[in-house]
């Protein structure tokens, strides 16, 4: 039996009160509840506050570059589809630097669970606007206020027909756990955009701000209706829906390579005899 103790890692270097703590705890509890062992998991993360996540639990860890979580995770999943692969990224990380990979990871649909710790700010680099920062917000680096339309990650994912699209809130850990579990049970690429208050740099989107707006999707909400989901995804402002906005099964990336239908690539033996036989047709001429 796995317990929470199996998921205690290094001491977090986050600010006291940071929304990241409850995401971390939710994750640990979900792992225990689903009895997934640390060595079965790989967490791929980038650089940023969210990127430090895997160090603070126990798991196989690839803490790579800022913005590049998804290609690394895809490579891992294709090399060993038996591993449970998670990608953990910040909003700058995933929607800014890594935006192109997000689009194409969704198109590929590997069975990867992506958590975006969306604090609507660049935390680790001290408070610049991120792609989800709301219009007009001034920072040291946005002296004329944030001039771009904030990116709506859920609408984007639905437009790309992402297999599983959800929003969680760090201030509602039970709901977040539910969403995480559903994502894990779901087969296919799963995006959870997690509203994560940054108590140091985001003075606008605070716990309070989110709490006043966030609501659970209605019971009769149908996450299979793409156009309905798109409409729901556009809701942002007075009311912000959390939950599973869009969900449908489709063939995963790894299922489309017949050669890894069975054994993962990492476990397949290299057969030098076969290789020699094949290439001797090119390299060796009968004398």
């Amino acid at each position, binding site marked *: 039996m796995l317990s929470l103790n199996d998921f205690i890692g290094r001491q977090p270097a986050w600010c006291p009160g940071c929304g990241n703590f409850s995401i971390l705890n939710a994750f640990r509890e979900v792992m225990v509840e689903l009895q997934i062992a640390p060595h079965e998991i*790989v967490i791929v993360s980038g650089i940023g506050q969210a990127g430090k996540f895997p160090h603070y639990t126990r*798991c*196989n860890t690839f803490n790579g570059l800022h913005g590049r979580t998804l290609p690394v995770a895809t490579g*891992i999943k294709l090399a060993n589809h038996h*591993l449970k692969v998670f990608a953990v990224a910040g909003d700058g990380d995933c929607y800014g630097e890594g935006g192109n990979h997000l689009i194409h990871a969704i198109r590929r649909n590997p069975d990867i669970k992506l958590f975006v710790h969306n604090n609507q700010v660049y935390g680790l680099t001290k408070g610049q606007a991120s792609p989800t920062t709301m219009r007009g917000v001034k920072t040291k680096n946005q002296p004329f206020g944030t001039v771009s339309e904030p990116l709506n990650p859920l609408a984007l994912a639905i437009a790309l027909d992402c297999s599983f699209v959800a929003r969680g809130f760090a201030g509602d850990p039970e709901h977040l756990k539910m969403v995480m579990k559903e994502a894990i049970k779901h087969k296919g690429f799963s995006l959870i955009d997690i509203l994560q208050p940054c108590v140091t740099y985001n003075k606008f989107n605070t716990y309070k701000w989110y709490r006043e707006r966030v609501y659970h999707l209605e019971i009769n909400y149908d996450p299979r209706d793409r156009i309905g989901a798109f409409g729901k995804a556009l809701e942002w402002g007075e009311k912000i829906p959390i939950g599973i906005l869009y969900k449908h099964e489709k063939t995963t990336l790894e299922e489309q*390579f017949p050669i890894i239908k069975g054994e993962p690539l*990492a476990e397949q033996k290299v057969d030098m005899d076969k290789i020699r036989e094949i290439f001797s047709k090119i390299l060796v001429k009968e004398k």
Partner: protein
Amino acid sequence: MDYSIRIGGEAGQGIQTIGDTLAHIFAEAGYYVFTSQDYESRIRGGHNSFYIRISDKPKEAMKARLEILLALDKDSITLHGPELSENGQILYDPSLFKQTLEGPRVLSIPFLDLALKHGGSKIMMNSVAIGSIVGMLKMQPEPMIETIQKTFGKKDTEVLEANVKCAKLGYEFALKECLKCSFSVSQVLKPNTLISGNEAIGIGACASGLKFYSGYPMTPSTGIFNFIAEYARDLGIVVEQAEDEISAINMIIGASFAGVRAMTATSGGGFCLMVEGLSLAAMTETPLVVVLAQRPGPATGLPTRTEAAELLFATFAGHGEFPRVIFAPGSPKQALYLTNKAFDLSEKYQILVLILTDQYLADSQWTYDSLDMERLKYVDYRLRGKNFRNILSYNRHSFTESGVSPLGVPGDAHHLIVTDSDEHDEEGHITEDPQIRTRMVEKRLFKKIPYIKREISPPIFFGENPPDTLVVCWGSMYGVVKEVVEELKQDLKLGMLHFSEIYPFPEEDGYLRYFEKAKKVVGVEQNALSQFEKLLGMEKGISFDARINKFDGRPFTVEELKERLIAVAK
């Protein structure tokens, strides 16, 4: 016997099919063949050409002088007509372009007409042309028929028959009409293998246990991608085209981390985008093989042409300091074995190995009488399955005598594999500790490098020893320099040193004596800045007395290099 043939025409006319088929016919017939391609960055029109050299002795470079010019467009005649040798022949179909050529050096054959009449389609013209050249050379027709059968074997027999018929028609026409053709080929027996630089790298990779390839198309590296994709099903290789080169490099890093051998190939612009990933692989000590197929820059430059101007960039690419190995094969054969060595070293030392080629080598075909497949090495250096489960404790980046830590496969045991692009401790977790930092730099850099240097083979020497003039070259310059040195070595007391295992320089430095003994050292490089000379200067304090550079995007011909070498060596 040593004949050069050039096939010229517009993109889309089938120049490459004709050239490639002929090359295979010649190899099958037992000759030594060398081919090289010249093409523009467009799909139809413009002017492309395919060069073939055929001999009874191995020839590994291109000559300017031509014996046969197959002209499928007017430009072929304008551009390559002057290259025709005294006994050379232009072969063409007057109906293809409004020009009639006269004189004894012209053979006109109605390709189109024969194709339409006897093959039933315009495209069969190419088979007529193939047959004509085989006929002009007065070769036996069997290897031709066999090769065409192999090429079209997969298509329906009607098409196959028609092609054979057309080739035979061309053959007979040429035999009969080309009375003035003074070609005669020696009788040879054993067929040769014919492989290109890109194919050799593809085979080298597959035969090293490659299991994952991700890439983004870019000339002249795309041939490697194509080759691997062709064998993917049979060999169990996952190939995935990435959305960009950043993704490609990070995907293969992920796959390598997860326990499989992985590779990507690209060209300069794409390589730029991979540079941050190289540094990531280094920090996480993930084995990685990357092919950089060079072409003329800066930026898009001349995208389908050749240059070798990214050596220094490749040597120092990536932020921070980390070890790397750089190979630059000089021939398909070297490419085959060095690719295999690249995978071996990369996994053994958990480092990055870069293979540098260029368009010239990538697209050139060489013949060999069989290549030894037993020389291909496969050792699995990873800690897997039971071996991994049975160890008591595990730290991904533990300090060891050699600097190499055990490379476990994630998921294979309860041990966790943790790694980080940040500086990390032995377990793989982020650290800010200055002592650990210093030890990690020493581990990655100072401990591994001496071992790696011992694995590097010294350069190849060829020619007169001691030489008066030492010609130094690297990578794809091998064949042309060798031929020129061979020709001139006695007159000029020439020797050559060819480097294919470029960096780091080998521990065994006996080759330095050639620099001391030579009266004059001349570098030959396909770039403007003499980059290899600079690197040798940096690492060994050696400088040259003269240098021959070429940077117009076209490979050296034997004649051009000979002339320029005589001018400096004298």
